[in-house]
């Protein structure tokens, strides 16, 4: 199905030339990150249907391509997300409760209810704020990498984007600037085959997305995006090269958006269930579990314990977040500028002076 770099074989063994040689703890941490993302998605979609959060964008099917890539980056590196990577924010240490508060837009939402659900930010983990327009984050990742290079720091930036984003002008500008200025940017394209209802074949006439990198003067590599070790290996190597001053690289993770684009989307309108089922058979979590089992690190009992543990964590975070009230009305006026200018003060004061009905 995919002609791309693979590490985990069907029987759970690994390609010895590419295996990153994880310890048991490292391997389980990666599996935990993916499982957390999966269980969170299912719980949040349910919460959305119950009207307890307004919107949700799941990452079902893309756990390996998100968590595998995020874990390949060092703590001083930056991550520039698109909008389907809460798993990466959690890898960077964002507390689950804070993430839930963002989804609910309550008083402890780090963005004060200023943005829709799923527009996370986590400065402490060098995890940038999210924009809804597609592809706009790409030049930012180039500028951040450029700044690191100008400051003489050996760091790298990982930027997430999808197949649809490769059609944007910002993709072209970012790839071009990255090539010209040799910025330490790792372009991680989650080719999940669908940009809402438009399949990748209608997005581009290129045979692959990775080959676009060649035209900008750097390498692109295609990896099996359902294989967390393959994504990890390719991203880690690209980041190492970038930190050493060898310039940018593009990694195309070939994956699949098993769920809807968002809680507002009904994929049965535009795609065949048989296609979904075929990709589901390549579930990145099952694949990774086979690898853990092959290494002798996993069994049903540990799986059950992990599910229970993550489920309980999410339940606690939901309960805590749901107890928090909405943000105070004056937060509408906060953070427009570093200092509130007089016209905004006037608007705020005039509003607050109105009789409350």
């Amino acid at each position, binding site marked *: 199905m995919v002609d791309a770099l693979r590490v985990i074989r069907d029987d759970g063994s690994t390609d010895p030339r590419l295996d990153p040689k994880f310890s048991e703890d490292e391997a389980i941490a990666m599996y935990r990150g993916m499982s957390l993302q999966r269980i969170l998605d299912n719980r949040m979609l349910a919460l959305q249907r119950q009207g307890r959060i307004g919107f949700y964008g799941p990452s079902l099917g893309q756990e390996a391509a998100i968590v595998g890539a995020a874990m390949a980056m060092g703590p001083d590196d930056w991550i520039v997300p698109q909008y389907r990577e809460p798993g990466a924010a959690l890898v960077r240490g964002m507390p689950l409760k804070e993430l839930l508060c963002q989804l609910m837009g309550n008083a402890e939402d780090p963005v004060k209810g*200023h943005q829709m659900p799923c527009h996370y930010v986590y400065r402490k983990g060098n995890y940038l*704020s999210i924009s809804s327009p597609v592809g706009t984050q790409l030049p930012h990742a180039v500028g951040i990498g450029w700044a690191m290079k100008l400051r003489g720091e050996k760091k790298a930036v990982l930027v997430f984007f999808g197949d649809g984003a490769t059609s944007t002008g910002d993709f072209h500008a970012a790839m071009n600037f990255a090539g010209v200025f040799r910025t330490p940017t790792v372009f991680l394209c989650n080719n999940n085959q669908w940009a809402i209802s438009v399949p990748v074949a209608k997005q581009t006439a290129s045979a692959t997305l990775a080959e676009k990198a060649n035209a900008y003067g750097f390498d692109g590599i295609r990896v099996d995006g359902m294989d967390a070790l393959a994504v990890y290996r390719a991203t880690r190597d690209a980041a190492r090269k970038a930190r050493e001053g060898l310039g940018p690289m593009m990694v195309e993770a070939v994956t699949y958006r098993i769920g809807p684009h968002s809680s507002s989307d009904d994929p049965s309108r535009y795609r065949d269930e048989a296609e979904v089922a075929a990709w589901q058979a390549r579930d990145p979590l099952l694949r990774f579990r086979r690898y853990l089992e092959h290494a002798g690190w996993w069994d049903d009992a540990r799986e059950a314990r992990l599910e229970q543990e993550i489920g309980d964590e999410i339940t606690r975070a939901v309960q805590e977040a749901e107890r928090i009230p909405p943000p105070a009305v004056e937060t509408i006026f906060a953070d427009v500028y570093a200092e509130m200018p007089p016209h905004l003060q006037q608007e705020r004061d005039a509003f607050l002076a109105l009789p409350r009905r």
Partner: protein
Amino acid sequence: MPAMTMVQAINNALREEMRRDDRVIVLGEDVGRNGGVFRCTEGLLDEFPDRVFDTPLAEGGIIGTAIGMALYGLRPVPEIQFMDFIYPGFDQIVSEAAKMRYRSGGQFSVPMTIRTPFGGGIRGGHYHSQSTEAYFCHTPGLKVVVPSTPKEAKGLLTSSIRDPDPVLFLEPKKLYRSSREDVPEGEVTVPLGQAAVRRPGKDVTLIAYGYMAQVCLDAATKAAEKGVEAEVIDLRTLVPLDEPTILSSVKKTGRAVVVYEAPRTGGYGAEISAILAEKAIEYLRGPIMRVTGFDTPFPYTLEDIYLPNADRVLSAIDKVMAF
């Protein structure tokens, strides 16, 4: 104290800020070896070879990567060669730079100053002459600054570069080399958000910015010959606006003429008119007049007809005085 054109004063401000703060980076089309098509960045590459960049020809890329630098803590000063070329970067300005602080709950900010020449008067046709500040003034999170003299260009640009928020710094091309003014070497700042009363007067207030501030001064001179004392206010910063200076002047004169070279409909001067109507109506002794460009694209051959001039401003003054 050297006499400088506005181009030289802008160059001086950039050079001094780059000397003072090694986080200041200049990037854009032709800004390096060529020193910018108007020469505002002349010689900067020689002095700061690692901090001045000729970029590929892509405004979205220039603004977008500058945003990235600012997010990382640098102070980029991207140049867009003409304001008429800014639109490939429009999304990056209005959806990204302007919203970053708000959308991240204050966790991230974009201290970036976008410099761009704007306005008519150099025979540039509509792709080198437009004055589209209203698009940007309509975007919360951005500051919009327009100098009208060399010394203030230095002071306002210095303050913009030091500002913690994204600033669109509009340079009136017509004034780039039209006059010289003594500009001190070393620290010169003009605070953002403060208008200047360029000429005091008691009969009518003329409100403008950029080249139109100069046109209003000419009109005020002519009006004085007819015994009308016009007060001229140069806004200098459009966002945030200095309301108190405008309101106190209009409350004193009871008459207001707002002058801008952009198309009339929805222009920034319309906002000024609305503020006066809301907050000073009981002081007004006549209608708030606007003297503006026409609601057409900017013409080439008949540029001088399109641009408001002192006589058109005078006609408006006559009308409001005779009301």
